[in-house]
């Protein structure tokens, strides 16, 4: 196959590209320029948006011996990922931009361009496994290295996207990937893993959001100060704007007085229009179910009325989060999920990814949650 290897400049995508070559594919390395104003050098462990990362990717391509180009996806990235990130936070929800980037950029904008240019597939360094079934279907499964498994952020890919994807690292634990990189002479072998959100350079989400959203709309309600209340409605603090708060958040609330019972308080609810943040004890974060919208199926589409249940059916509610056993009903608009194992601090805007054993069935965006004690 003719394969485009998306190379971030990190160790995983470099080894993935090398493995694709070794598997006999005709591989071309691509670095995606996603930032409109790339910084020259990365700071800390973050990486994928600087010129230095682009250079690292280029050097890896040299070592592997494949052609290398930079594709400018900054406009698409801004429109599809960054704007969505801002909109979702502005609405008091918590987005997952990595998921959106996979859905709209890596496996849509890049894939479509690659297919049009005569390539057959896009390879990335994601930790997930693809399997072809006896009937010719395609399935995505969790990676062998459960600690590194990234099937959650790929749960938005549909059957067509999966058919044109390669995840060469899904069968290998991360430490072995690093060893392999060193063995292959890839200088990125020791490069730290990337964390946080790539386009928020200093990791200060709230500060970044405040700056960008106020550029866009200085009168936005969620940028204005408001109050923090407890569940009885009594004011317990103030905030500079609902922006940047996340359901389940405990730190940074700056509540003047401890709760009467002295227990820590968590964000239970965010109401951007009335600029009210509600806090309460940990047990009030527990949910028993949720509603998902905009379903995506990583394989055959499940029509409304289908039900997934049984010991092997689980859902995951955040990246690297726990598996929760669940009963999932497909509705006209998405999914209704009953959790058999309670979950805590689930934020609307994040994805619910449904698994059957290790297989990813599909995903939806969490629109609402049902609290255990309601």
């Amino acid at each position, binding site marked *: 196959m003719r394969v485009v290897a998306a190379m971030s400049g990190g160790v995983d995508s470099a080894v993935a590209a090398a493995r694709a070559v070794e598997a006999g594919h*005709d591989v071309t390395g691509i670095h995606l*320029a996603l930032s409109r104003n*790339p910084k020259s050098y990365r700071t800390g462990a973050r990486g994928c948006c600087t*010129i230095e990362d682009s250079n690292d990717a280029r050097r890896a391509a040299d070592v592997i011996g494949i*052609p290398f180009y*930079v594709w400018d996806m900054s406009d698409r990235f801004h429109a599809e990922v960054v704007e969505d990130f801002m909109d979702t936070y502005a609405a008091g929800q918590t987005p997952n931009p990595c998921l959106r980037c996979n859905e709209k950029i890596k496996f849509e904008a890049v894939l*479509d*361009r690659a297919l*049009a*240019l005569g390539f057959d597939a896009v390879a990335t360094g994601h930790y997930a496994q693809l399997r072809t079934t006896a009937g010719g279907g395609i399935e995505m499964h969790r990676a062998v290295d459960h600690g590194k498994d990234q099937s959650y952020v790929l749960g938005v890919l549909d059957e067509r996207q999966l058919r044109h994807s390669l995840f060469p690292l899904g069968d290998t634990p991360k430490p072995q990937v690093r060893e392999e990189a060193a063995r292959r002479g890839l200088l990125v072998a020791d490069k730290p893993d990337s964390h946080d959100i790539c386009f928020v350079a200093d990791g200060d989400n709230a500060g970044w959001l405040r700056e960008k959203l106020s550029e866009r709309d200085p009168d936005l309600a969620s940028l204005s100060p408001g109050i923090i209340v407890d569940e009885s409605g009594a004011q317990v603090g103030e905030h500079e704007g609902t922006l940047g708060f996340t359901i389940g958040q405990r730190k940074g609330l700056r509540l003047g007085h401890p709760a009467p019972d002295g227990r820590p308080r968590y964000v239970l609810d965010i109401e951007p229009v009335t600029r009210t943040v509600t806090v309460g004890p940990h047990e009030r974060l527990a949910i028993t179910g949720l509603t998902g919208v905009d379903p995506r199926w990583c394989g055959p589409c499940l029509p409304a009325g289908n039900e997934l249940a049984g010991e092997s059916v689980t859902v995951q509610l955040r990246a690297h989060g726990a598996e929760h056993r669940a009963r999932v009903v497909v509705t006209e608009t998405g999914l209704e999920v009953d959790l058999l194992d309670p979950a805590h601090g689930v934020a609307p805007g994040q994805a619910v990814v449904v698994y059957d054993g290790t297989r990813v069935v599909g995903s939806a965006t969490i629109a609402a949650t049902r609290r255990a004690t309601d």
Partner: protein
Amino acid sequence: MTERTVYLDHAATTPMVDAAVEAMTARLRDVGNANSLHASGRRVRRVVEESRETLAQALGCRPGEVVFTSGGTESDNLALKGLFWSRRMAAGRRTRVLSSSVEHHAVLDPLAWLEEHEGAGVELLAVDVAGRLDVAALRATIERDPASVALISVMWANNEVGTLQPIEEIVSLAAAHGIPVHTDAVQAVGVVPVDFACSGVDALSLSGHKVGGPQGVGALLVRRELDVTALLHGGGQERDVRSGTLDAPAIAGFAAAVEWAVKQQHAYADRVAALRERLVAGMLREVPDAVVNGAGAPGGLPGIAHLSFPGCEGDSLLMLLDAQGIECSTGSACSAGVPQPSHVLLAMGRDAEDARSSLRFSLGHTTTEADVDAAVAAIGACVQRARAAHR
């Protein structure tokens, strides 16, 4: 899988000619610093000075007017900053620098720097649809306040679309007010006739590797009467304008290449012009709605064919051609590794979409009809693919 390489990017760099390789490699084992007083130093000094004389002879200047540098970019920086500072030193109100909007970044970026850090008033003059400077606009700009102009810098030939600039007219406008003129002739030397004295320019940049010499060496020709403030301070090797131990082997290769290129210039230009014509005709046959940019001969460089392929991204085309061993350029600079729409095309009145759809094929001394035919044979399918990718 890998086919023969068809190299059509000679404006980026061209292979070294035999005469240059021989002149350079013959000196690689020599010991001696051209500034040492002993016999070894004198031997190397002699190589440098003979090279200087060769260069002067080929380019119509005096040996003392040749300042060796590390290449075109350094030559441009030295000319622009060095002349700006010395002219302003002599008269404080000389702060305007007039140039064109289609210069190479080695000119545009130093000018932007002078504007930001040294208070220069940089005015980039408009060009016509072919990329040629608007002389009337230059005249008006000069005459608004001639005494405030520190210098004028206009390239001899554009590196992207190949259009030749009206250097003679620029020089006569400037001469009326005693304003020095610098020209970046990196793309012109050896390709069109370039004679320093006859042209009347005061400073001229050239580069070794664009004429078949080695990379990393070049020269600024600058009239002796002109003061140039140094950028690099140290040993004062090049008439106190440029310091640093001279790279004698590279200089020998550079001089040999320039001598060869100038000697061959007429025959070369005829041969390459015919190849360009074949290329352009073939491309237009394969892609009838392609657009040829720039002046074309005789108003442009004979070896550059710059074409827009509507509905394509130049990047996609470049990659598809590269996969078939055909090497060309989008012509424009990268910013942070991200290709930008060409400022040259934009200045010529094209929109960003149009500017991004372009490729530069530049022919050189090793180009053959087979090279041209291979590019023509490949372009149709590549354009079809690139269009599909750009929908």
